[in-house]
């Protein structure tokens, strides 16, 4: 057996080195494929996330419960201060409620005077966050709702605090949500007070920036940024964030949504095609509940 072994060792070594080189080239090939045929890669991504979604769903539940317990213990400690703060908040909010009721009636009257076309009401699809955006580069997460529950690519994803992002790759029972902080995220927004239009562009940091403002537009720290509804995919007026800094390097916005403890999100279905053209985006086959 010895001579065979002596002969086989260099061949095996050569084969291993060849395999190594081959796999490195294959990895580069996959990167090129991702750029060249995004549709194929998206289909693969949707299928894989769909297959793993039940496992992630099961795994994320006990973790969420544990996190909930920690949160509960934390709030127990600060119960007295919390209660005091909430009383003050409640008093302020009651004043706001009165103001809102008055404005609502006034608005309804003015609308009927103008015969204003009512906005198309959207439907909500609730989803649980089952996988985090793993790491420093990817600004996205998975939810356990897909085309089976009516989710389509390009829909707005919100919580009670405001806009989270939009759906990207959608599978049958899972969907990837691209955060507004992602490098590839571009959301049409307006400054709430001045109605100045802009685009909110993510740059992979926690603070996205406002770009494409009209010449001479005035924006100052503290301004509220809301979605404009242009492009048709997002409902107008969803709170996005607050301007925190205005400088030569750009207008920095702090999102209202805190991504750290995101557990449930709502996906808004306006029944429109969305900002993403559907034929270019992968849509898996499957039953769909029409809104």
């Amino acid at each position, binding site marked *: 057996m010895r001579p065979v072994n002596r002969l086989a060792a260099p061949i095996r070594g050569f084969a291993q080195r060849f395999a*190594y080189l081959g796999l490195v080239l294959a990895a580069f090939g*996959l990167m090129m494929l991702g750029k060249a045929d995004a549709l194929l890669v998206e289909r693969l991504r949707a299928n894989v996330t769909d297959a793993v979604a039940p496992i992630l769903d099961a795994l994320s539940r006990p973790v969420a419960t544990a996190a909930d317990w920690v949160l509960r213990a934390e709030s127990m400690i600060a119960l007295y201060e919390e209660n005091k703060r909430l009383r003050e908040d409640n008093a302020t909010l009651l004043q706001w409620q009165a103001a809102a009721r008055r404005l609502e009636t006034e608005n309804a009257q003015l609308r009927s005077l103008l015969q204003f076309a009512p906005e198309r009401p959207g439907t909500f699809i609730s989803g649980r966050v089952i996988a985090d955006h*793993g790491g*420093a580069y990817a600004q996205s997460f998975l939810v356990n709702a897909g085309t089976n529950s009516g989710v389509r690519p390009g829909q707005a994803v919100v919580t009670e605090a405001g806009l989270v992002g939009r759906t990207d790759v959608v599978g049958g029972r899972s969907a990837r949500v691209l955060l507004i902080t992602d490098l590839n995220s571009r959301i049409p927004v307006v400054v709430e007070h001045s109605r100045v239009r802009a685009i909110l562009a993510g740059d992979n940091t926690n603070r996205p920036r406002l770009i494409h403002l009209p010449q001479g537009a005035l924006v100052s720290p503290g301004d509220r940024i809301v979605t404009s509804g242009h492009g048709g995919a997002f409902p107008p007026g969803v709170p996005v964030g607050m301007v925190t800094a205005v400088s030569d390097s750009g207008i920095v916005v702090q999102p209202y949504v805190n991504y750290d403890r*995101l557990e449930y999100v709502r996906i808004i279905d306006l029944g429109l095609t969305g900002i993403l053209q559907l034929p270019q985006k992968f849509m898996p086959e499957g039953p769909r509940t029409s809104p």
Partner: protein
Amino acid sequence: MKPTIWQRLDVLARQLTPLGITFALVILNAVPLHVPALARVVPVLPLMAVYHFAIYRPVMMPMAAVFLIGVFHDLLTGFPLGVHALVFVSVFGILGAQRRFFMGKSFAIYWLGFALAAFGGAVETWVLMSGLNATLMETRVAFFQYVMTVGTFPILAWILLLWQQAFQRAD
């Protein structure tokens, strides 16, 4: 003596354990932990397993499987396809060539080796992501993620080394 079916199943199960662990770590890595600010700097768990098995059980980790685990990681975390496949394969390949060096060395050397390998991996990821996005990516968060990965390594390494010892005893 001809091995019984149970013995053969036992051997098969043991041989599949390294791949199974690494595969499970990819899924575990994605589970949301709801800890403030952790999501962006979550340690790259499968890289630890790839490093460990490249040194201790390379026979049970075919390089093609390491590649596929990388692809799976990319698909699940939303990375561009191929980035982690390349990172895992290069860490595995380089460590595989250096594995004799780590034999019989202390845990500190083993940890230091991981710190170097993970640094190489982090730089590689940064270069690839910057190239694919045609812009220079942020380095600060990537650096903290690297620190987290190296810092949490001993916990997982301890479990993997326990398994390794149990395995050797069984042999």
